[in-house]
């Protein structure tokens, strides 16, 4: 397996949607390729960091404003 072939399957590997046979091939490639090993581990870490640190916090009071707007719209006709 070449690095390009590994890269083409990177998402499937991260999303755990590879067959056991394919997984063995990928593992074999990783054993001899430090570059792909780093790409895999740091891509996983990238996802993990974005998942565990919410960006763009909602401004305080926005939820209340939205609630008031829905209520106002509702009074007009619902």
């Amino acid at each position: 397996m070449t690095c390009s072939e590994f890269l083409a399957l990177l998402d499937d590997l991260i999303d755990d949607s590879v067959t056991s046979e394919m997984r063995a091939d990928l593992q074999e490639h990783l054993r001899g390729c430090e570059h792909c090993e780093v790409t895999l581990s740091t891509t996983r870490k990238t996802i993990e960091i974005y998942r565990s640190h919410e960006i763009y916090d909602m401004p305080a009071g926005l939820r209340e404003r939205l609630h008031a707007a829905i209520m106002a719209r509702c009074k007009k006709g619902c």
Partner: protein
Amino acid sequence: MATIQPIAGENEQHPDVALVERVRAGDVSAYDTLVRKYDRQIFRIAQHITQNREDAEDVMQDAFLKAYEKLDQFQGNSKFYTWLVRIAVNESLMRLRKRRTGKMVSIDEDIETDEGSVPRDLADWAPDPEQNYTQSELASILEKTIKGLPPGFKVVFELRDVQGLSTEDTAEALGLSVPAVKSRLLRARLQLRERLSRYFRKKKGSKQVGLKEVRKSDLL
């Protein structure tokens, strides 16, 4: 953090459908429940596309109001959240068009870039590299890093990796094909990884004895 849960089983009714039915029957408080469940996620999507806090606030409000008004058009064959995302994405794009004085903006644009398709920065990262930064520094790094990606990449990454939607639901919410979602996701992941490497790569001279052996065995 909250993620969007998939439907538990084929025959089980999604809790959102029950809430929608209550709203249709005149119970406005049920709509409040839906708003509170999804407002943060919708705000983030709007912020990703518009890149402007005020616009994102307006988009969020308009999207929920529009969804409320169009609730009769919501078909139970799609999930409420994917339907809502579609409304929010359209509102965001319209807002962006206004700012760019009518220039066409779509979730399909800017996909010709090759950036990140081949990893260039191959330096390993420090263990738990985010711990080298304060919360506000990290937030700024993460925002700055994702900001430069094309809108279609950012939203696909947000829906798939941050919010945990399936590829199929992401495709439906964005009006894209499944292969298009997959291709954007791979490139978004690789571009973000490449850009974050600047901040998270191991500093020269730091000791990492034993780390490699542990991590390699955990990779697969």
